[in-house]
């Protein structure tokens, strides 16, 4: 560093002894030294090109970040949340005599339940955390704080990422009516099943409704007239997570209210223009048997 030929621009390229007339031992195809004016233009053009290439690389790197790196980061957070939830369940199991689920005092980002979608494979499992802030959703699917909890009458609503950040709801558009969404809490298992699609509603009882898996799933009437299995709405349409979806003003007593589950994610993929919504209805529930801690509901076998 600091040698003379390193100080001038292009010194490495242009021979140091310009005045010498003797031909250089290795002849170069390039004509003599370029005039300074042309040299400067060349430098500017080259620099602009380099900057553009660099920006292109940065955008590519961002795609890699969005699709892969955030997955890695979220996988770690999801593992941690699941471990914490398992610890808490285990601790409270041994401490409490009374076996009932309660969800009071959950902090933002605390895990409180696990969800399984057997149709997506036996390994599809996510810990649901409280709250839908960006930080919570990096951990896993997040519960809208004002909506019902698992098993309660009302609409247990959960948001999840579709691209990156673990992408829990990546394939949520592929779920079919009557497919099970199983939710595990500390003391219970809840089985929700997707309600009929708009086009399946007519002739449900004679058609798909005959499938034994569809027991308990049917188009709901009355205030639930507008309820369909899947829909695409604008982000401003908060009615989808109302206790009675699309009827936020209807008040029903908890006895009249159906127990629903709603999943929300972005649509189309890589965009936040719209939201993809999946609605499901509670069809079954079991209390966990403390003497058989490893017992799992048969619905979890409905893979493939």
């Amino acid at each position, binding site marked *: *560093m600091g040698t003379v030929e390193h100080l001038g621009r292009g010194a490495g390229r242009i021979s140091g002894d310009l005045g010498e007339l003797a031909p250089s031992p290795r002849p170069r195809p390039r004509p003599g030294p370029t005039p300074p004016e042309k040299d400067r233009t060349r430098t500017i053009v*080259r620099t602009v090109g380099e900057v553009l290439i660099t920006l292109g690389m940065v955008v590519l*790197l961002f795609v890699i970040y969005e699709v892969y790196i955030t997955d890695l980061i979220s996988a770690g957070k999801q593992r941690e949340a699941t471990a914490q939830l398992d610890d808490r369940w285990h601790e409270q199991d041994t401490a409490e005599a009374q076996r009932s689920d309660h969800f009071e005092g959950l902090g933002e980002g605390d895990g409180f339940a696990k969800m399984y979608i057997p149709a997506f494979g036996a390994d599809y499992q996510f810990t649901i955390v409280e709250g*839908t802030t960006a930080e919570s959703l990096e951990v896993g699917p997040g519960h809208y704080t004002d909506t019902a909890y698992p098993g309660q009458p009302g609409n247990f609503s959960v948001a999840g990422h579709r691209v990156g950040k673990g992408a829990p709801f990546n394939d949520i558009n592929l779920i079919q009516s009557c497919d099970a969404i199983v939710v595990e809490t500390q003391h219970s298992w809840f089985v929700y099943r997707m309600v009929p699609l708009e086009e399946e509603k007519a002739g449900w009882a004679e058609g798909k409704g005959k499938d034994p898996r569809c027991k308990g799933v049917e188009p709901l009437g009355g205030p639930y007239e507008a309820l369909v299995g899947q829909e695409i709405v604008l*982000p401003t349409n*908060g009615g*989808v997570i109302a206790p009675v979806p699309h009827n936020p003003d209807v008040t029903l007593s908890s006895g009249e209210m159906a127990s629903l589950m709603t999943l929300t*994610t972005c649509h189309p993929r890589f965009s*936040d223009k719209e939201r993809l919504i999946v609605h499901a209805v509670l069809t079954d529930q079991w209390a966990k048997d403390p003497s058989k801690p490893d017992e799992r509901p048969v619905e979890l076998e409905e893979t493939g």
Partner: protein
Amino acid sequence: MYGWIWRHLPGPVAVRVALAVVLALGVAALLLFVVFPWLEPLLPFNNVTAE
């Protein structure tokens, strides 16, 4: 730009290559772990909630 950086890296070619790789990795890490996490919420890709 890259030529300028290359000329200002000290040492023989092997050292310069090593330094260049370190620099590139450093910039990538800065982007991945500082710039992108900050930038991401400002971009319209990944909002999943309905208001």
